[in-house]
């Protein structure tokens, strides 16, 4: 018998394939010309990421970021690790920039108003119209801009000077009262730097410093470093929160003083007075503070006096205390006074110089007062403004309607909006000019003296949108008006300015070209400054009242707290589905708005979670579903800003409610800030109910081994990883019912008897994670980072309502102790819950097709294209971290899909997915190590969640390597694994217990 192919078989095969080829060849309807990628652009290697340094443009903090670009598309943002503000981390809003860049609702081309409609025009026409209108208006031109970088700001000023008009800046979230208070207290018109890391006692009178306040990422890093327990010496900074509502920042506090809104000034001064009585010096404020006794302050704040005395003890014991004012949510009619009181307390307690630094003041902080815009509105209403140029601000949305912005702007002859996406204000314009996103354009930022960050385009402009950078447009306008500003493009303009900076700084690093190249690579430059650090209290140059402010509305009503959303900020983040879908860190609600009401108040009113109530203030009314929240005072209700857009793209429109409608348009004196805490509201049930789009099932752990804590006093007393005195018992696979005690060290997982497929524990790494829950603040940056990295789709409000969120990390939030009735410990536990990559995984054996299986390198693999969708694995997952593609969620409108990470599969309908430990990053590092002929180094693999975590709570690595950081972190008495003792899953994720100052019931884990 001859082996091989027979002649006949060969002919058969030939015939069939030939016919097949013919059929296939004929079936092509359309012939497309394909071009091979023979000569790629110089900086693009297909499949290899290029990283660009730039500056995040989301808030005024000015974080330096790295933009990951693959094949010419920006696909992910990460904090620039060398940047002193971001320190390598990034918040959820920063990540979401990409969705503003690729937002399908961006303006596609210049548009001109024609009646109620906009009609597209070309750039030449548009610039002509703009030039003519501004020429006609001349000095009756006004520029209304939001916060912009120093170069663009300078250019605007130059252009405005050229025209002869005026420039007005408006920021919805403005810390004007803080800046004014600092000016009054220390004579420095700036916002100092707050050093959380050095603080050994932190008092916040409401400032949401890890959410929106000034520089959240930097604050969170410092806060986590000081507030997270130091395992070497057991030191831990106490954080006391004083306010009527626990925001996310407050949930991270150790003690909560639920003081009445508006009583901050009295309490702070009374504390200062008590310190002065103990020998501290309030300088020129000695006489003022004498008027404030603890008893009166306690009376005003509605808390017992002895708890305030306790606070005085803490303060006088502290060497580096840090006291923060009320923040934007607490901007009431005496907000400057409250901030001043906090500053006085800082000075009295010795914080100035130790935790409050004036040599690094926050030059970029958003502090422009509303009064500037107020003046402009009056001018517009008076008809003296003929042309208005709008850029980067949305007052039609973010101001209370009572401000009359919409009415006033009608009196302006010509309105041009330079925006990248239509919003409520741009809708009022006559001409809309599409602006570039910050990731496509040049710019810079100067977040603090001497720290300059360059903003360079990370990619060519998204071709779907015929946009022009605002800077280029202004330069072109200037040249059309006959002015020469010394630059053709804004790129040149920025370079020129940096060239001057370079020269002024004494030309470091040699020539400017060398310096510039280095700046572009590093993303920043630190230049010498002469900022003075020394300040002292000065006598106030104006009289202020520190008393509780007046509130509008009925005395019986509830005080309305309108707070900035940690997801949307002032509302500018609302057009990104990632942020809409991100469950609010406090309420865990996505997509829609809610009103926070204390459970007791709610039951008095006869309303439950999800019942829709009407809030009525003297200025307006809104309807909102109730979220019962024990972290808000019984006499207070709270609503987040940022939702309820009428025009801001498909992801924002009609989602939620804008609470600004309830507020008066009033200026705080003397700062001129908009008053946010201004009114009481009547809460009236409507009898209607809705299902909340929430991911929260229960807020109680029922003492299950999920989120245990340990009291600081108990640390170091051998309450180690003892499994509550139980040995882990392992039933031998085939050996019958003979329990075999096993050593339960996580380094040894998976233990004998566990089922782990082809994994060879002796040969391979054991990838493992450690999460320090004493550092985790629940900010949820990791959730969005994971979405960006892993192409996790959005599902929308209806799907979240049904319980179908797709996030790979669920930020669980359990209330242990939250008491709004009296001062005392507050204990909220956060558990970032992702796939635990169990050594003995319950999901693996139940999958009928091996889609869930143990990879040879010890991970829980999920093979998307093998999955048939029985969902058995998810049913059997005790951690409930497997999520299912109920529909084809990944089909997003062009160009949103440009953001997808090409290293990660985009999942189709009907398959299960879950956290992969960023296996693509592990592979990449392993490949690189192989190419370089070495082993993978510890710390080289950084999953997206760890990379993003501003609190530095996550450590990842090979736990089997005793030298690795994760192995060392896990060698800690606080280490436990969720549910492990209950069901023996042998997870690869280790948690370190939260540490509390108050005693906690010891849950054996």
């Amino acid at each position, binding site marked *: 018998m001859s082996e091989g192919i027979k002649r006949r078989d060969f002919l058969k095969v030939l015939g069939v394939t030939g016919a097949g080829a013919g059929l296939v060849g004929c079936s092509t309807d359309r012939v497309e010309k394909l071009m091979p990628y023979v000569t790629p652009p110089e900086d693009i290697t297909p499949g290899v990421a290029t990283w660009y340094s730039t500056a995040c443009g989301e808030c005024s903090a000015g974080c330096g970021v790295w933009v990951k670009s693959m094949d010419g598309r920006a696909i992910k943002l990460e904090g620039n690790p060398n940047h002193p503000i971001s320190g390598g981390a990034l918040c959820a809003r920063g990540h979401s920039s990409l969705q503003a860049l690729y937002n399908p609702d961006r303006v596609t081309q210049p548009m001109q108003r024609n009646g109620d409609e906009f009609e597209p025009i070309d750039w030449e026409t548009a610039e002509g119209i703009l030039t003519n209108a501004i020429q006609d208006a001349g000095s009756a031109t006004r520029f209304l801009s939001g916060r912009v970088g120093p170069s663009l700001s300078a250019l605007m000023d130059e252009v405005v000077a050229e025209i002869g008009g005026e420039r007005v800046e408006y920021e919805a979230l403005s810390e004007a009262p803080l800046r004014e208070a600092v000016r009054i207290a220390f004579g420095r018109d700036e916002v100092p730097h707050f050093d959380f890391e050095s603080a050994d006692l932190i008092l916040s009178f409401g400032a949401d410093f890890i959410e929106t306040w000034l520089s959240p990422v930097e604050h969170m890093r410092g806060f986590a470093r000081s507030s997270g327990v130091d395992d070497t010496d057991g030191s831990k900074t106490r954080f006391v929160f004083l306010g009527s509502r626990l925001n996310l920042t407050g949930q991270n506090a150790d003690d909560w003083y639920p003081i009445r809104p508006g009583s901050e000034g009295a309490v702070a001064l009374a504390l200062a007075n008590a310190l002065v009585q103990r020998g501290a010096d309030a300088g020129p404020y000695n006489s003022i503070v004498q008027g404030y006794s603890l008893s009166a302050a306690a009376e005003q704040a509605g808390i017992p006096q002895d708890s305030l005395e306790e606070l005085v003890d803490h303060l006088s014991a502290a060497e580096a205390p840090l006291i923060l004012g009320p923040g934007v949510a607490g901007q009431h009619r005496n907000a400057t006074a409250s901030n001043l009181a906090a500053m006085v307390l800082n000075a009295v307690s010795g914080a100035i110089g130790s935790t409050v630094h004036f040599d690094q003041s926050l030059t970029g902080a958003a502090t422009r007062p509303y009064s500037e815009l107020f003046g402009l509105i009056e001018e517009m209403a008076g008809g003296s403004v003929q042309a208005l140029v709008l850029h980067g601000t949305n007052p039609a949305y973010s101001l209370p309607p009572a401000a009359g912005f919409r009415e006033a702007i009608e009196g302006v002859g010509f309105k041009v909006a330079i925006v990248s996406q239509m919003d409520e204000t741009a809708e009022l314009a006559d001409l809309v000019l599409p602006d570039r996103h910050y990731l496509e354009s040049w710019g810079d930022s100067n977040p603090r003296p001497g720290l300059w960050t360059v903003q360079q385009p990370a990619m060519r402009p998204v071709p779907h949108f015929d946009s022009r950078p605002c800077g280029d447009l202004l330069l072109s306008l200037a040249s059309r008006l006959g002015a020469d500003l010394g630059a053709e493009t804004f790129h040149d303009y920025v370079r020129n300015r940096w060239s001057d900076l370079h020269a002024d700084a004494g030309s470091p690093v040699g020539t400017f070209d060398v310096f510039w190249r280095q700046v572009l690579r590093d993303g920043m430059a630190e230049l010498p400054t002469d900022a003075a650090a020394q300040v002292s209290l000065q006598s106030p140059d104006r009289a202020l009242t520190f008393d509780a402010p007046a509130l509008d509305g009925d005395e019986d009503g509830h005080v309305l707290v309108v707070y900035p959303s940690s997801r949307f900020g002032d509302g500018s983040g609302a057009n990104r589905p990632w942020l809409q879908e991100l469950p609010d860190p406090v309420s865990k609600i996505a997509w829609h708005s809610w009103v926070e009401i204390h459970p007791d108040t709610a039951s008095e009113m006869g309303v439950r979670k999800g019942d829709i109530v009407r809030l009525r203030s003297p200025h307006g009314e809104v309807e909102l579903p109730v979220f019962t929240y024990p972290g808000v005072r019984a006499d207070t209700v709270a609503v987040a800003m940022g939702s309820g857009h009428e025009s801001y793209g498909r992801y924002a429109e009609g989602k939620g409610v804008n609470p600004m409608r309830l507020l008066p348009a009033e200026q705080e004196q003397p700062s001129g800030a908009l008053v946010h805490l201004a009114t009481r509201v009547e809460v009236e049930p409507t009898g209607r109910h809705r299902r909340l789009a929430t991911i929260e099932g229960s807020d109680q752990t029922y003492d299950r081994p999920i989120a245990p804590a340990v009291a600081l006093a108990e640390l170091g007393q051998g309450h180690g990883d003892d499994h509550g005195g139980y040995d882990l018992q392992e039933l031998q696979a085939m050996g019958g019912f003979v329990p075999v005690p096993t050593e339960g060290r996580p380094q040894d997982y998976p233990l004998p008897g566990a089922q782990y497929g082809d994994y060879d524990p002796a040969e391979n790494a054991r990838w493992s994670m450690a999460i320090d829950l004493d550092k985790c603040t629940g900010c949820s940056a990791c959730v969005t980072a994971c979405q960006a990295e892993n192409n996790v789709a959005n599902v929308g409000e209806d799907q979240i309502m049904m319980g179908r969120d797709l996030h790979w990390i669920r930020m669980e939030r359990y209330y242990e102790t939250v008491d709004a009735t009296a001062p005392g410990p507050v204990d909220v536990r956060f558990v970032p819950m992702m796939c635990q990559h169990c050594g003995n995984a319950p999901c693996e054996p*139940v999958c009928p097709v091996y889609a869930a299986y143990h990879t040879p390198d010890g991970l829980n693999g999920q093979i998307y294209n093998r999955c048939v969708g029985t969902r058995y694995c998810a049913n059997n997952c005790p951690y409930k971290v497997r999520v299912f593609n109920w529909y084809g969620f990944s089909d997003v409108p062009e160009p949103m899909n440009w953001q997808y990470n090409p290293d990660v599969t985009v999942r189709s309908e*009907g398959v299960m997915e879950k956290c992969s430990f960023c296996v693509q990053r592990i592979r990449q590092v392993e490949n690189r190590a192989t190419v370089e002929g070495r082993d993978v180094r510890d710390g080289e693999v950084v999953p997206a969640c760890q990379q993003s975590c501003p609190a530095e709570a996550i450590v990842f690595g090979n736990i089997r390597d005793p030298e690795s950081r994760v192995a060392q972190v896990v060698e800690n008495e606080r280490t436990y694994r969720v549910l492990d003792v209950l069901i023996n899953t042998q997870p690869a994720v280790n948690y370190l217990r939260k540490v509390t100052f108050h005693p906690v019931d010891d849950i054996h884990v």
Partner: protein
Amino acid sequence: MATVTEKERGAQTHPDVRKYAEVNTDILQMLSRPGKWWWILLGMSIAGIGLLAFSWGNQIINGIGLSGLNSPVGWGAYITTFVFWVGIAHSGTLISAILFLFRARWRQSIYRAAEAMTVFAVMTAGLFPLIHLGRVWHAYWLFPYPNQRLLWPNFRSPLVWDVFAVSTYFTVSSLFFLLGLIPDIAAARDQTQKGTLRNRFYHLLSFGWRGTDRQWHHFAKAYLLLAALATPLVLSVHSVVSWDFAMAIVPGWHATIFAPYFVAGAIFSGVAMVITLMVPIRKVFRLEKYLTIRHFDAMAKLCLVTGLIVFYAYLTEFFMAWYSGEDPERRVFWNRLFGHYWWATWIMLTCNGMIPILLWFKRVRHSIPALFVITIFINIGMWFERYVIIVTSLSHEYMPFAWAVYRPSFTEMGIVIGTFGWFAFWFLLFIRLLPPVAISEIKEVLPPPMRPKRRTKEEVSS
């Protein structure tokens, strides 16, 4: 006391049936022209199939998201109804095989219909593993077919066991069903006109049956063999189905009692369904002679026994949850009784625990309307039992933060209702096309026809 022979016992079960010929006439008249109501019912069942096809098609095109399922409740009405139909499927084989082996002579007049019900119920149940898949077009991956990539299903997964259990059960029960039919189909064949469609159909299914001794001999052997083969399946299939749950670590599922508990429940629901179906058949076709009160009494007793086992299993579950001392386990059961799904649990307890208590009373067991109503309650209760086990457990697992509520969607309801149409469709065809009562076996238990005893000379003379 004289021993009662089998024949006499048979005569007791069917005291009103006198002649063999009568059996043929009575049973085969059922296959005559159907009436108006049959057509109406058939129309309704086809409408049900239409609903099923529409809902399922819609779900395939648009995505499994049309169900109300979510995380963490990955299984809901679909798997509930799957288990429900598999459970229904159990009584047929129990009655035909196990009772055959145990020589329980009251089975003759009901076993045929029960068997048919089994086959159709398995056919219905078999749809659900497909319906509930996220990607039904890849369902064949669950079968161990040879392929180049040497990919096999995961034999450790209870779902793969399920595939084998249900397909084996379907094969064996339909073989058993068709085999038992042969002599009766031959009888029907002989009554139909040659050459008609019906005649040819019977011709095909009767496999050339002529009723020779030799054929009867082989038939009896084969029947016995298949009965012996089917018997373990009665116990194994539903045990395997129960392991879909018991093998998982979900609190409320992970219990060793599940296999016997599910088997008892399956027989409970299956017998109840047989009663529910037999009552109208008996009435419509005037089969009172064949389906006597004694039959219903026996089935009601079977219901009562299995019902008590099931109720005992409920109590055991609750006890074990408390006794375990584990909060996740305890809370699941507390939540069953008083949580979001309390109503489902109380329907289950009422229908399966309380109402069957009535069956203790002979008067109830002997009242056909009462039995009809009670068994409908049992059917409802047994559907809710599975719903309670699946949904309440999944919605309330280890991580309290991930607890969620599941509500069945319209698509799910459409499919669930549609499968009742699918089942009814086959059953309606069955009662008009195949002899729904076993002609030959009833004859076996009738007193053999005898000539009248000749009078002796003495009798004549006196």
